[in-house]
């Protein structure tokens, strides 16, 4: 089973498709979750997902915007899509019928 951050990273990679690389994934995660995402967390999780065979990475082109440095491009694999789908399904099923609004702190009798 995936971890929460692993799922967020896979989802951002899938959404960015051919434009998925370090900085773009980071911005995508920060925009969707409204939480900061550090370079350390991003790249160690990318390494872990690659080890598990859920993503593939390769070095892309250098751009002037990046000071002539290459991008680490990311692509989600079939196994990655399967793992993310399973995680999403599990979260959906476990959340069904849970009244979060009523369970807010201070809402209990």
């Amino acid at each position, binding site marked *: 089973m995936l971890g929460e951050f692993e799922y967020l990273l896979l989802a951002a990679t899938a959404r960015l498709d051919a434009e998925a*690389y*370090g*900085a773009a994934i*980071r*911005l995508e995660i920060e925009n969707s979750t409204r939480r900061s995402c*550090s*370079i*350390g*967390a991003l*790249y*160690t999780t990318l*390494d872990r997902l690659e080890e598990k065979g859920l993503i593939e990475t390769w*070095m892309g082109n*250098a*751009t002037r*915007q*990046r*000071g002539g*440095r*290459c*991008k*680490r491009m990311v692509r989600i694999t079939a196994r990655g899509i399967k793992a993310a789908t399973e995680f999403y399904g599990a979260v959906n099923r476990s959340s069904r019928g849970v009244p979060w609004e009523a369970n807010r702190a201070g809402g209990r009798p």
Partner: protein
Amino acid sequence: MKLGQWLINKITRTLEPELQDAVVGDVAELKMSDRRAICELVGLVVRRQAQPWKTWRPWLALVGIVGPVGVLLSRISAGVVTSFSIQAIAYWKYGVPYSSGLTEAQEIESLVCFSLAVICWSWVGGFALGTLSGDAFYVNGTLFCLVWFCLCGPLQMLIYSARLVLNALHLMPHTALPHNLAQFIFFAALP
């Protein structure tokens, strides 16, 4: 070059070349301040250095080599340095060798043999440490050097050299100089 950029270059140098390229490029593209970039890059380096410690091998290297072998080597090298320093001080101050019961040839022979043994065992220890530690080599290597350095070896050599020079120059009385690390720290801590 600005200090921040210099630090960023130094920190990223510990990463693999491809990752270094990707990370420095991301920092430039995201237009991060130097301070934030340094914090995030240190975080990345620490996380990557922590990864290998999830296996048992670096721990075995730490407990089995850094501790016992480091201490043993430092003690032996300290012994070699001490006997050499005693002879050197005796020659320098009084012009005669310190009588240890050995002839001059035997004295030189024992010094050379001990030195060679320390060099060989240091190499074997380093090789075993590198093989067992894997990617945790930098951490274990640094700890090994600290143990070796602080527990007498080269530090004692420095202290004895300082004693030798200060003695010869009559700058300080012989007894006022520290003999070992414990004394050195004790004197340094005095107000």
